[in-house]
């Protein structure tokens, strides 16, 4: 993990930011104690990721007033994300020091009141703003006047704080707008003695010390990354001295270090943490200079390998250079290079990859394998605000993809290949079950995306309720299984006779299978059923959406100034190899 800069470094650097990036976010910091410097930290950390953060800091300890007053500057600021940073001392006042000066019953009552108070604030805020709000859990102090006996008390003060945290978490478990940040884990990781500094507390009511405020800011950045959909999707891994110790081509199958004894156990643990990420939807790929057979023997047969062939969506094991292999992986997985993380023990390879693909997150792996696991655990780039079914099944889906690529290689031509796939497209109106995935696709899809308009869940929800919009999603099945929801289309009914395609996108995973023909046919035929005469559409070119540059002309749209138009005549037919079901 890179060394953190000091607070003054952040304050100085934030004044030097001049560049305005395309990705912008408005962040409000609302706190019960002094958090001076946090906005500078967030601005700098955002700029390092090509994000322009505009930050509002609420006046000191005025969180209630700011939230309860609809005319407050907080609401006027129109934040995308709001961090409500509370601390236990402030919430409980005198009770923090003297919890046992009152009865059990009174303590319990206080907790109930505090939960209601905070719930009321959160609900009000969500009702009156479009911002997502992240509330911090209350930290449990290590001190108790009861000392070690605290854990023997039924309604202890520490239990009360735990209850508060548990209940707030439970209330908002399924909320799309309210998230709970585990402040206690931040303390667990960094230590109460480091995070809380009495001297700074007495001096300026700081409850996160200046040395640890940058680390706290780093944690909050997880929400920024997730909200903007900048989450990394795939880890590209070297093999020798990365997934195992030593070089299989030289040390041999029996000579590599991988097993329950050190240093082999460090590599096993590293593989375990990678597997845990894979199970939650991160794609893994191999980029290794090796004899294919030597490496595959380890991957297939070594008794202590944790990651096996089925965990890798792509395996580039050859003597090509690392950059050529990355290009191959990008092509095979059909993924944007900015979604990749590259892990290799060789600094020369890392520099080479960085120089060609500055957008790839290249991990500066230390030369000590015992720190590999830690380095992965500390990445904030896999953060998501929602884990969808598609995420969980992604590993399986890429296995299907591998089979499809094999089928494609053996098919005579594209038509034969497509007809062997038994493609089925299921078109559905977006509902609350499919909304998270649809929002994820809208925020993340870069390549097959006609307009690259980014909508948050709340925006999409509004369109679903608005009768002037049709919001549909597309699920694709083939003979190898279900690909899940992989396409989204938003149509705006401009008037009685004209519709406009506001959004048309597909996950890159299903590109090249003519799915778009099925969707376009559905749109045109539905428009015809509704007596629509014209469908308008725009192609907004970006650096990444070349795959859709001919989508409109391929479907007989005619350029009409800046826009494109399709004049509806007769109903059109879906290609024979596609079956379309409308739900």
């Amino acid at each position: 993990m890179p060394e953190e800069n000091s607070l003054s470094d952040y304050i100085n650097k934030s004044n030097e930011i001049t560049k305005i990036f395309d990705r912008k976010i408005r962040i409000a910091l609302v706190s019960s104690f002094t958090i001076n410097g946090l906005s500078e930290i967030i601005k700098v950390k955002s700029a390092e990721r090509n994000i322009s953060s505009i930050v509002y800091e609420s006046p000191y300890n005025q969180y209630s007033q700011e939230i309860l007053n609809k005319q407050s500057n907080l609401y006027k600021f129109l934040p995308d994300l709001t961090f409500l940073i509370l601390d236990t001392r402030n919430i409980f006042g005198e009770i923090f020091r003297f919890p046992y000066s009152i009865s059990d019953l009174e303590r319990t009552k206080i907790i109930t009141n505090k939960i209601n108070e905070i719930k009321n604030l959160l609900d009000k805020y969500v009702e009156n703003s479009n911002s997502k709000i992240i509330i911090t859990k209350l930290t449990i102090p290590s001190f108790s006047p009861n000392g070690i006996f605290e854990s023997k008390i039924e309604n202890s003060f520490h239990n009360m704080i735990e209850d508060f945290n548990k209940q707030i978490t439970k209330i908002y478990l399924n909320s799309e707008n309210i998230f709970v940040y585990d402040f206690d884990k931040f303390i667990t990781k960094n230590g109460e003695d480091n995070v809380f500094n009495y001297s700074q507390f007495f001096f300026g009511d700081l409850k996160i010390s200046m040395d640890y405020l940058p680390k706290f800011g780093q944690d909050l950045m997880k929400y920024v990354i997730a909200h903007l959909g900048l989450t990394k999707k795939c880890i590209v891994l070297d093999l020798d001295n990365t997934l195992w110790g030593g070089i299989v081509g030289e040390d041999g199958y029996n000579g590599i270090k991988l097993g329950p004894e050190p240093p082999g156990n460090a590599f096993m643990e590293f593989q375990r943490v990678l597997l845990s990420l894979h199970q939650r939807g991160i794609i893994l790929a191999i980029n290794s200079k090796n004899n294919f057979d030597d490496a595959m023997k380890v991957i297939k047969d070594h008794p202590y390998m944790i990651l096996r062939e089925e965990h890798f969506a792509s395996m580039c094991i050859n003597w090509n250079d690392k950059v050529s292999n990355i290009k191959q992986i990008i092509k095979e997985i059909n993924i944007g290079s900015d979604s990749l993380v590259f892990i290799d023990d060789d600094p020369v390879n890392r520099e080479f990859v960085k120089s060609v693909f500055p957008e790839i997150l290249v991990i500066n792996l230390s030369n000590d394998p015992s720190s590999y696991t830690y380095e992965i655990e500390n990445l904030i780039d896999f953060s998501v605000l929602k884990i969808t079914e598609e995420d969980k099944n992604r590993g399986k889906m890429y296995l299907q993809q591998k089979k499809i690529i094999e089928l494609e290689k053996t098919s005579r031509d594209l038509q034969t290949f497509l007809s062997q796939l038994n493609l089925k497209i299921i078109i559905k109106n977006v509902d609350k079950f499919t909304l998270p995935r649809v929002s994820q696709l809208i925020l993340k899809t870069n390549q097959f995306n006609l307009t690259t308009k980014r909508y948050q869940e709340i925006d999409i929800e509004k369109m679903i309720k608005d009768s002037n919009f049709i919001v549909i999603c597309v699920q694709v099945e083939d003979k190898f299984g279900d690909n899940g929801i992989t396409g989204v289309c938003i149509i705006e009914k401009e008037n009685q006779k004209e519709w406009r395609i506001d959004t048309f996108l597909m996950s890159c995973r299903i590109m090249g299978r003519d799915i778009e023909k099925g969707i376009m046919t559905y749109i045109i035929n539905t428009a015809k059923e509704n007596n629509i005469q014209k469908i308008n559409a725009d192609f907004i070119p970006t650096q990444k959406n070349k795959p859709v540059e001919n989508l409109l002309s391929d479907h007989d749209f005619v350029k009409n100034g800046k826009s494109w138009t399709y004049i509806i005549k007769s109903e059109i037919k879906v290609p024979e190899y596609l079956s379309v079901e409308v739900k």
Partner: protein
Amino acid sequence: MSQKLYKIISKVMKIDISTISDELGPETIENWTSFNGYVLLNELETGFNVKFTIDEAMDVKNILDIKRHLKNKGINLDE
């Protein structure tokens, strides 16, 4: 060591090293706000591996005070 001290003051207060003198304080340095005063003490603590007591921290009114407290902690600023 005084070079190190001046570097930290210069960074936190955003003033040129050449302009730093003993009598400068919150009245004469624009960026010496109360918060930045804490930041300065905190970064001096880290930089010199010392700890200021609450009395010492309260007592700091100018650069000379900082030097005095650092000297009392065995930091040789003449090196």
